[in-house]
């Protein structure tokens, strides 16, 4: 089989898998404070990836963005904030149905943009949905800005600097 043909087949298979929930065998994360069904988990994953699209960037992180968002909320947030996040997460699908009459993975590009804009503007969604979005947005950004890629490319991060220079001209 030629390489291009093989890649096309893989692409078709992947696309099929994406719309067929029955083929999604990945175990749903189990978290002490965040009860999670497969569809809720996948909708969070979808949202987190829409918040900062990574296409074309080679960003490797120890955990997926979704796992990071869930872990941070589960472990580090105040119980009442976890509750609000969970309510928002659980209500997200219903919110989408109400707004767009469809589910997250059937939203077209325009609808996705509209959704993100209205949540970003933050004046129309129910309080829990807004909290769920704001939290996911903040943690998605933290996951990206704490990545090796971002720290080394954009923030001059060095693990072992071996020097301190106090008066360096800013280049350019």
């Amino acid at each position, binding site marked *: 089989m030629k390489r291009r043909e093989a890649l096309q087949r893989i692409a078709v298979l992947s696309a099929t898998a994406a719309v067929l929930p029955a083929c999604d065998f990945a175990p749903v994360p189990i978290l002490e404070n965040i009860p999670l069904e497969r569809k809720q988990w996948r909708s969070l994953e979808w949202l987190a990836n829409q918040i900062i699209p990574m296409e074309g960037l080679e960003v490797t992180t120890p955990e997926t963005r979704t796992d990071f968002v869930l872990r941070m909320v589960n472990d580090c947030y105040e119980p009442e904030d976890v509750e609000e996040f969970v309510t928002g997460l659980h209500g997200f699908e219903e919110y989408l149905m109400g707004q767009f009459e469809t589910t997250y993975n059937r939203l077209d590009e325009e609808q996705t943009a509209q959704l993100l804009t209205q*949540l970003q503007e933050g004046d129309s969604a129910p309080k829990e949905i807004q909290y769920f979005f704001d939290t996911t947005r903040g943690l998605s*950004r933290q996951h990206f800005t704490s990545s090796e890629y971002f720290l080394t490319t954009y923030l001059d991060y060095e693990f072992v*600097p071996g020097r301190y220079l106090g008066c*360096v001209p800013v280049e350019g």
Partner: protein
Amino acid sequence: MSTDTSHHFDAIVIGAGMTGGWAAKELCEKGLKTLMLERGRNVEHLKDYPTTFKQPWEFPHRGQIPHAIKKDNPVISRCYAYKEDAMHFFVKDTDHPYVQDKPFDWIRGYQVGGKSIMWARQVQRWSDFDFEGPARDGFAVDWPIRYKDLESWYTHVEQFIGVSGNLDGLDTLPDGDFLKAWDLNCVEQYFQGNVKENFEDRHVIYGRTAHLTENRPIFAEQGRTLCQNRVLCQRGCPYGGYFNANSTLIPWAQKTGNLTLRPHSVVHSIIFDEKENKATGVRIVDANTKETTEYFAKIIFVNAATFNTNLVLLNSTSSRFPNGLGNDNGLLGKYVAFHNYRGKINAIHEGHKDIKTEGKRPTSGYIPRFRNVYRQETDFLRGYAAGFSANRGRLVDGDGVGMEMRDNLLSTKDFRAWRVGSHMMGETIPKESNFVSLDSNAKDEWGIPLLKTNIDYDDNDEKMLQDFFEQFTYMYEKAGFTEIKTRDTKQAPGLDIHEMGGVRMGHDPETSLLNKWNQMHACPNVFVTDGACMTSVSTQNPSLTFMALTARAANYAVEQLQKDAI
């Protein structure tokens, strides 16, 4: 008395932190078979620094402490260094409770190395303006020593631990044997010049810090090499670039063959023999088995860290000393003081836009005390030192959502304006009403009474705080800084991690517990050389002075032993 020779030593050192380490080093070098007791676990240099090579993105919570831990441990969670990378070196509130009759944030490190693993590494000598403070200003009691008594011991300590600093020639902050300094950055230098121009007796200097910036044979002999500017010191350093007891004093003492280190040993009390009229040993409870054991020695150094040293002595009761060892005058546990760290000030510096810094530096600028130094000039006693640092980093624009946020994050590499800031380190006045004591009922799981804290700020501290705000606002305005913001953190005493006193030194057994050699007036083969011995607290970060006092006292103790005087 036990005849088991494995329980007999020349010296026992209680506590394996910074001062215990110094006692052990000096005593072992002089040939004394020394037992070092540590209530916590062993921490071996390199081997027991589990996070030292971890990148920031490898921490599951990116440094944050999980909510459940914070909720159960509010005191330790307020400590600036209690983060995911070093939390294993700090004592949790729940593991070792104490009773706060008044709020006191007691920050502890129960392990070999103690808090020397996570300390902030700032080391400044005291001057006679500090030692003469109580006598001049009429508080506490006169220090039984002056700078000249400690000068050579400061040098002795600096030469072994390595201190990076400049020779500043200030009479308020004597110079030492320093390794080269890193830069003050351009903005710090600008402020330094501006302060010099406008204020006669105020100086902005480089904060002297216990880091290796030059190689010397003594450091190579310790197996240490140059600081690599990671500024991850609180995790333990793979280069031995900063001083902690684990990479220096303890292996050094072990190398003599004279040290026996016993971790997991909770000291219950010091054993006093009424017939011999001296302390003969130490009673411990094994932290794990809870079994009680006794060890015996000719001299005992108490270096359990300020409050635990007080606790051990208060709990060492006998018919000769019903109120605690050496406590004939009833002052044991009293006249505790600390540093007032409540004041912070921050501002923006609009200048130097064409300048940035590169790399990292494990210190900052330092402003020695300038208030009430040469004469009493305010309506409060004493004064404060302060830090000063300026920094700037890249702007991170995380606005928007979707491709917009991504573009914002990936398109900005500009620098934000310089931020400058200072924090206050105020001298507090030791008072009888600031004290620690033992709870008469509650005990810990090793059967030892819980410590109670009764320590608070007073009017002098409040006035000093306001003065810090006023003076630094004025200094910042003179330098043209903008958006000046002052903040009273309102933190409880203790979060400065500079608690001192309770077993103070002095001339007179009626009014102090220790003599000028840190020897108990009433029990001369017991020496107290950690923060508990401090008569007053001045403004300097105190560890260097504790270490110098310890080395001095240990050498004195050996001389006295050789003369059969104790």
